[in-house]
């Protein structure tokens, strides 16, 4: 990389390649700036370590400027950049889709600046950065899930004052979160809160589960893998370590239910046991159905397996 950098710098200052006192001569150490410098990576890793030690606690971190706008996954991106190396295999999904514009751009950014390898297959990946989904396939203990978080504060909807919020978390005072669920049920007859459902982590902290659907919540409970949550705009990192209790806040007499549309199945792979999303008629040549799998890699593999058999 140092040669490339030196050449680039030469080009910038208009020096002759190979000339006597070119900038290339001045660059004595190989420098790979990447996007995050080593100090920034270390700071993010420290925040991650704290987050892992105190499951569910929102750890403040520096949150550097990224080449993507805040709100476009800058938090997840910083975590990924801080933990991947050349040995890693990275998968990035947006709403379950490897081919979403944002997913493709983030994946390219990570691959091109870290030397990690890209994949769309879950079982090949060591790090999976995601927006709004957990892959349908079970993850293993040596895989890390990195979630992009828009609003890390689960109590934001019931309290705006930062000092009060800190106090509520410190005292595990989540009465008003329960009231918001009570009000939801009273007003609507059912608990309508679907994505980002509040969960109690390790019996202590309530977290916002990012906008992952309820469908994915049970898969965080006692999961074998590490989940890291990064909120770039809000400068917070939190974590669910492997084998940690994750309990959705649920009234004893109102069971927690995941999204399910009776009779619906994927119009591509016919799956009904996956998280499905509704599509407009005639999209993707799927004129005969209104639903497809949210996890595109999973759906694709199912179809290829069908063709083989």
């Amino acid at each position: 990389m140092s040669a490339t950098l030196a050449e680039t710098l030469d080009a910038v200052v208009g020096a002759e390649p190979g000339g006597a006192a070119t900038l290339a001569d001045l660059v004595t150490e190989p420098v790979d700036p990447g996007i995050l410098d080593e100090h920034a990576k270390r700071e993010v890793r420290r925040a991650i370590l704290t987050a892992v030690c105190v499951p569910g606690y929102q750890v403040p971190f520096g949150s550097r400027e990224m080449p993507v706008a805040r709100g476009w996954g800058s938090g997840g991106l910083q975590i990924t950049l801080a933990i991947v190396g050349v040995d890693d295999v990275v998968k990035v999904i947006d709403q379950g889709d490897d081919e979403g514009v944002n997913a493709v751009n983030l994946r390219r950014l990570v691959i091109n600046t870290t030397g990690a390898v890209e994949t769309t297959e879950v079982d090949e990946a060591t790090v999976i950065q995601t927006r709004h989904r957990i892959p349908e396939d079970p993850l293993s203990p040596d895989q890390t899930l990195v979630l992009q978080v828009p609003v890390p504060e689960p109590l934001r909807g019931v309290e705006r004052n930062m000092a009060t919020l800190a106090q509520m978390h410190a005292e595990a005072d989540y009465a008003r979160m329960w009231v918001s669920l009570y009000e939801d049920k009273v007003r609507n007859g059912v608990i309508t809160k679907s994505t980002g459902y509040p969960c109690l982590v390790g019996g202590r902290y309530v977290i916002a589960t990012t906008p992952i659907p309820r469908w994915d919540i049970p898969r965080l409970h006692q999961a074998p893998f590490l989940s890291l949550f990064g909120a770039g705009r809000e400068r917070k990192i939190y974590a669910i370590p492997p084998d940690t209790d994750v309990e959705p806040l649920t009234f004893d007499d109102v069971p927690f239910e995941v999204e399910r549309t009776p009779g619906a199945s994927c119009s591509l792979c016919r799956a009904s046991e996956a998280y499905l999303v509704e599509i407009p008629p005639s999209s993707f040549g799927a004129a005969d159905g209104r639903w497809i799998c949210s996890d595109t890699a999973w759906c694709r593999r199912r179809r290829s397996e069908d063709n083989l058999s």
Partner: protein
Amino acid sequence: MTVYDTARDTAGDTSSDTRLEDATIAYSKAPSAGQPVLRVERLGKIFGDQNLAAVAHTGPNAGTEKSPDGNSVVAAWDVSFNVAAGEAFGVIGESGSGKSTVMRAIAGDHSSTAGSVWMQRRDGSTVDLLTMTASERRALRVDELSVVYQDAAEGLDLGVTAGGNVADRLTAAGWRNFGQIRERAAELLGRTEVPLERMDDLVRTFSGGMRQRVQLARALANRPPIVLLDEPTTGLDASVAAGVLDLIRSLLEELGIAAVVVSHDFAVIEMLTTRCMVMQHGRVVEQGLTDQLFEDPQAPYTQRLVAAARA
């Protein structure tokens, strides 16, 4: 300073220069006194510079609660009283007399300069509320000590339904069954005479009297042994206030809850309490049985207050 003791033994010596601590002892012999659930001892609160020298230059004799240098306000000083289980105790005085300061000190809404507030807990132990941490006091407020504020916005979340406001206290106390929470909230709102068809309306849409009824329901949700009532009917129009007062009285009697009632209004103190104290410029000027105190006020200030109220 003279503290008049209205609950004096009429046959014995009624020395009018009884110091406050002596007066307190006298009350423990009062007929209704059981084991006190709340014992306030020489409570003091100075706002501004914490200048203890200011105390000597304030109070009824000095005619002010402000220190000569103007940098300290001795909002309450040397305030002592007991409240027995199930008893309602009144604190009366004009605006700025320190009665709300006393109540907020007990509630833990602000720190105090001096004294102690002993409270008997459910488990029989006794704690000094003033030495508890803020979070311990908040925990206490869940089910052992409730407050009803003059301004409902202080005691309620106006953006939440009436039922939700009650549910808040229930969930804080660990209730996790939606059906039971709903049932209990409805029961409480029924008892405080909030129409059940309004249970699921936002409190913001409620009238002043209705908001106070919701506050009461919320305060009573976990059956605390002690309730603090700060001007519970001030700002309500007369007929509504009378209804709310009636309700408070019957609830206190029925549930056997001890109460500290703070008001500038004689009618409120007379209706709700058996014993009370009169405050002026941050000091207690007289305390005793409410009936006696109003019939036969001793302190000149109390006499003026009673005369004004009777006029």
